[in-house]
């Protein structure tokens, strides 16, 4: 029996010469347009503001034609200031540091979690998955705010940490201001960020670990590898793509994080998102704020490019 030709609207649309020739491009254009309008365009506006001169509260044009003289004025002062000022450099450095520490702890906690989730009985895996996703059902702001209550004086997590003498250890590492005081410290900030970003680490790790061929571990054992050696020589290298994906998903948004440092951070947890906010809305210094933003984007785009490169390589290996 032959199929009736081009009956539905979509059948006819696909058969149309325009779609036959340009259909693929038409599909790609939509996301590219989106990126152009909502990413590239704002970025260039910010870039322009960051090199613009200001007279009082009036922006001076970058290029102008006056009396037959075309002039191009690009003001790099803000960038130079950024690089020379200790505060900015320290803030960038501190943002990178907190993002790295958060990524490390997410990986440290998330890997075993994802591992046992992937190796759990198939019947309980959806339930475990649900438990990872469940926090997303409550407002992110609310959940971060809740940590305030848990960690402040008299909060039960704080009480527990004191009872277990964890505060002495944290104090020894200079992560809290005083024994028994956990809030507004590097510790409270890290707890909040690790808590918030943990699912973003677990999900890609789980995806790669659950796809792994367990016969490879049998083959390793057969060739004399103990389970521990098999884990490090086979499981970890084969989950590299998941480790990279998870780390990027945690690291990149952590650099620009504003809300968590605002709620849980303190005087010693300077983060670049906070500085941006202050420059824009407290100091009203838009060119300075824009320069800070451009540098943040560069800090994020470089890791993203690396990530894409690894992702492409990982796909190539699997093909």
């Amino acid at each position: 029996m032959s199929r009736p030709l081009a009956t539905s609207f979509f059948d006819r649309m696909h058969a149309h010469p325009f779609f036959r020739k340009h259909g693929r491009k038409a599909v790609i254009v939509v996301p590219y347009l989106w990126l152009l309008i909502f990413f590239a365009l704002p970025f260039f506006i910010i870039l322009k503001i960051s090199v613009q001169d200001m007279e009082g509260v009036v922006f001076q044009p970058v290029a102008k034609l006056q009396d037959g003289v075309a002039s191009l004025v690009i003001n790099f002062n803000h960038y130079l200031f950024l690089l020379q000022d200790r505060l900015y450099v320290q803030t960038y450095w501190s943002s990178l540091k907190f993002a790295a520490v958060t990524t490390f702890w997410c990986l440290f906690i998330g890997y075993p979690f994802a591992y046992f989730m992937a190796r759990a009985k198939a019947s309980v895996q959806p339930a475990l998955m649900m438990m990872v996703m469940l926090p997303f059902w409550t407002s992110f702001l609310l959940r971060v705010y809740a940590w305030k209550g848990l960690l402040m004086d008299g909060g039960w997590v704080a009480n527990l940490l004191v009872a277990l003498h964890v505060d002495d250890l944290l104090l020894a590492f200079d992560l809290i201001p005083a024994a028994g005081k956990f809030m507004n410290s590097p510790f409270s900030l890290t707890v909040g960020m690790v808590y918030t970003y943990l699912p973003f680490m677990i999900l890609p790790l789980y995806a790669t670990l659950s796809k792994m061929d367990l016969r490879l571990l049998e083959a390793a054992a057969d060739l004399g590898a103990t389970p521990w050696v098999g884990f490090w020589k086979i499981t970890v290298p084969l989950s590299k793509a998941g480790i990279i994906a998870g780390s990027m998903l945690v690291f990149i948004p952590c650099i620009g994080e504003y809300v968590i440092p605002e709620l849980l951070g303190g005087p010693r947890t300077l983060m670049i998102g906070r500085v941006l906010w202050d420059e824009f809305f407290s100091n009203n210094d838009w060119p300075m704020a824009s320069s800070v933003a451009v540098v943040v984007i560069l800090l994020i785009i470089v890791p993203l490019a690396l990530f894409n490169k690894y992702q492409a390589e990982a796909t190539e290996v699997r093909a």
Partner: protein
Amino acid sequence: MSPAVAGQAYLQIRDVVKDFGNGSVAVNHVSLGIQQGEIFALLGSSGCGKTTLLRMLAGFETPTSGQILLDGLDLAGLPPYLRPINMMFQSYALFPHLTVWDNVAFGLRREGMAKDATAQRVEAMLKLVQLQKYAKRKPHQLSGGQQQRVALARSLAKRPQLMLLDEPLGALDKKLREETQVELVNIIHEVGVTCVMVTHDQEEAMTMATRIAVMSEGEILQVGPPADIYETPATRFVADFIGNVNLMDGTVVVDEPDLVEIDCGYCRHRVGHGITGNVGMAVSVAVRPEKIRLSREKPEGEVNQVKATVRDRSYFGSFTVYNLELEGGRRLKVSESNVERHRADAPEEGEVAWATWPDTAQVVLTQ
């Protein structure tokens, strides 16, 4: 060379049972003795327990009861990574993130072998399987046949006392499989390792193995060299499972020295080779299709003959299979070797022909 007691097998499987506790017993009281240097095949359809038995040898499964001894050493309690046994996995299980060289070296490194000794051994193994040129490649850059050879090199690298092969050629296409069978056997003989292989492919078992154990539902039905399994099957199941066969049920009607006659209703068998039975005993007679001759005229002197109509004819090149219909609607398969080109007197479809076979062709089965 071997400290095992003389007369005892190198690998002894003693009354091994594996019960997964889901109602059916995967391996049911299996006992086998395998000699050093043998290539031993466990043959059966999927789910017959052959793979479970192999996995118990490798150490991935623990027997519910029974013992496995290799060269006198009880393997119970030894985890896979401590057993002097290596396995070639079904579809190879090569490590995708390691090069061919590193795959082969993996086991040697786990032994803590010195670097130059490892390199020497890996080179020797790659030479054995003719893959020196591919040492730097990753498994996904190799063809199926090359991957199979890497898997072989990897499992032989540690000089195992016993090598296990799980459907060793199952992932290759037919032509390559036939070539590889011979090559694989040559390499195994060159190395001199004792092998236990699992396969559902009887041709593979026949060409490669020195002895075959036919398994069904967790039990071993018959053990013997390929020719014995084929020519003198012990049960109806084995006769039917290995190759093609015509099975006819009947009763013994004459029992004399050197002659037994079996009446199957539509045909009467004279069996001339040394069997005895009691008159009235119910038996099955098995005749392989290639042992039956077909002619248009009623042959003189042949003791076993039956008149039949050719229902269909399938030409396979080197032989032709005839599907005959006997009186009463019974079917008989005959396979004629195409010695002549376009044989003129070959019976056509719908024609009546006479099928004959010598009195040595049948196997009489009681179970």
